[in-house]
């Protein structure tokens, strides 16, 4: 086991399904003790990438290590040391909660199996429902059970595929607090998500669209990397303004955010001129705002669909 300081270090991973190029030249580094957010629209290849990292899919090309173990070659060691939470709940509905946890503890050959299972049940608050069939749990509870189960064998690296999809906000907050506690203990986490607020809670981010990794780094780095300036316009009839702005010089994109229209572009001076002309004589105000992650993600996705995606 080499000690590169990286929990995940992969280079040039590719994966095809038939003629479909689902992951393209993915290179990604996750440091130990880091919470790494993996973002991207549906079907962009997040699940496929994660599956390659934990040995469930064989990359067509590329190399990499998880916890210092070589992908493919050391698949067994990776499986023993990584906790993987699948996007779709994948524990056994026809086993009870305790039986599921017990199965996991046995399969990882935990020496103190009973104790670990009891403690997990207690932490989950499921001790009294331990002999209930897992299939009867609600979505949120299944999510929590799955997370607890994939951490049962105390892995040093967690790969979590949309762990908070369909979970209510307060449960999500608890979940993220737990993730930060784990990270503080030196456990590394790669977590894919859809939620922007969650993206901001990660130490590092990667954004993937159509199989292409478009940006990687801290939130600030990702935002800075696109060199966008953004103006917020408020007032009435914003949707017709949005249409009118399309294609004008300096305007890269328009996005409605609550009561305001965010307009972004790469050439700040040109954008400002265009906007001032556009709102002249109308009851609208414009202010410069900091470009947010969401602006950047939308920008990147639109650009990538021009470059790599299917025809709109």
């Amino acid at each position, binding site marked *: 086991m080499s000690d590169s300081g990286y929990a995940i270090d992969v280079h040039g991973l590719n994966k095809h399904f038939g003629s479909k190029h689902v992951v393209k030249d993915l290179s990604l580094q996750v440091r130990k003790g880091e919470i790494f957010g993996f973002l991207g629209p549906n079907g962009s290849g997040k699940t496929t990438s994660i599956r390659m990292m*934990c040995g*469930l899919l064989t990359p067509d090309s590329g190399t990499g290590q998880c916890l210092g173990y070589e992908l493919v070659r050391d698949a*067994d060691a990776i*499986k023993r040391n990584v906790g993987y939470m*699948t996007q*779709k709940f994948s524990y056994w509905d*026809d086993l009870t909660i305790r039986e599921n946890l017990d*199965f996991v503890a*046995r*399969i990882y050959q935990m020496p103190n199996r009973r104790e670990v299972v009891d403690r997990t049940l207690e932490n989950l608050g499921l001790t009294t429902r331990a002999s209930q069939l897992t299939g009867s749990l609600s979505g949120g509870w299944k999510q929590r059970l799955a997370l607890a189960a994939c951490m049962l064998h105390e892995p040093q690296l967690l790969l979590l595929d949309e762990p908070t999809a369909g979970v209510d906000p307060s449960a999500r907050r608890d979940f993220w607090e737990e993730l930060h506690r784990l990270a503080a203990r030196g456990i590394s986490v790669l977590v894919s998500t859809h939620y922007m607020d969650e993206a901001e809670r990660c130490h590092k981010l990667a954004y993937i669209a159509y199989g292409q990794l478009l940006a990687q780094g801290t939130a600030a780095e990702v935002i800075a990397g696109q060199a966008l300036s953004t103006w917020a316009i408020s007032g009435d009839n914003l949707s017709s303004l949005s249409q009118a702005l399309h294609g004008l010089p300096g305007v890269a994109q328009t996005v409605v955010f609550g009561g305001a229209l965010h307009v972004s572009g790469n050439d700040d001076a040109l954008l400002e001129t265009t906007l001032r002309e556009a709102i002249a004589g109308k009851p609208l105000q414009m202010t410069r705002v900091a470009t947010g992650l969401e602006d950047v993600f939308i920008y990147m996705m639109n650009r990538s669909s021009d470059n790599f995606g299917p025809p709109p």
Partner: protein
Amino acid sequence: MMRWPGFSVARWWSIVLKEFLQLRRDRITFGMIVGLPIVQLALFGFAINTDPRHLSTAVIAAEHSEFTRSYLAALRNSDYFDIVATLPDEAAGRQALAQGRVQFVINIPAGFTRKLLRGERPALLVEADATDPAATGMALGALNLIAQSAMRKDLTGPLARLQAGPAAYDITVHRLYNAEGNTQYNVVPGLMGVILTMTMVMMTGLAMTRERERGTMENLLATPVRPIEVMTGKIIPYVAIGLIQASIILLAARFVFHVPFMGSIAAIYIAALLFIAANLTVGITLSSLAQNQLQAMQLTMFYFLPNLLLSGFMFPFRGMPQWAQFIGNLLPLTHFNRLIRGILLKGSGLAELWPSLWPLLLFTCVVMTVAVKFYRRTLD
């Protein structure tokens, strides 16, 4: 816990436990375990009548004369009998019957022709393996007719007077093993193999595809569990089920159909255990080949049909064309049918059973290897 490269008993046991727990909660499967043997016994317990031909026959000819030659020619022409061997004595004949190499032994005693010409009505001894009465019944019926027509042709001139009677000699038939010609004696033990084939292959055929369809396979694959542990762990509970089914059928055979139990119960269970293992490996292989449960069911049927048709359960094995016998010999059910009939009806011991035991062992090992080879360790 015991450990050696690639296999962990602890992990294997976790799979076994999980399968037992899931099985316990699966009412439909449980119903099948008990219901299927009962329904099948009721359906097939009735005779399946057939009129098989080309049955292998051995001849012990103590003398060669024109009459014996023409009689044997008539036998051959009848389509019922294929003379496959000429044996020196009765002991050799008995052995050939016991091993199932021939269905009939026709014994032409010394002095037959002389007695015939003197009008002493000599006896022609026919020994038949009546284990499967369907296979022997019609052929035995044909024997007398054949005798008459053969005589008519040969007894001419001064001997024509001998034609007068129904036949100039007697045919003595010894039905061995199942003297009363009771079809159920044959069908009911045969049914054991058929039911076990169907339920074992079907239930394990679904074992892997079920995990795949429910998405739990992804979880299983993400753990360090190994293919051999999953495969063997998953079939263990079905071994128990197979033995329960075998017991149900044996009880019915004994107390409902009054099938004689000539051999030892231990031998029956050893044969059953081997046969169950053979079928489970088939099931688990099919289930790693199949993409979904429907495909698994189709593959099960695809496997089941030749077993049903070519194993000697439906049609007497020796009556089938060569190519069908060849395929039949590759199928576990064929060998199990020989074993179970041998044990129950003939009281065969290990020595006589061995020719049918080793093919089952070999089959199980080969198929298990294939199963592990075909197990997909990734989701690719």
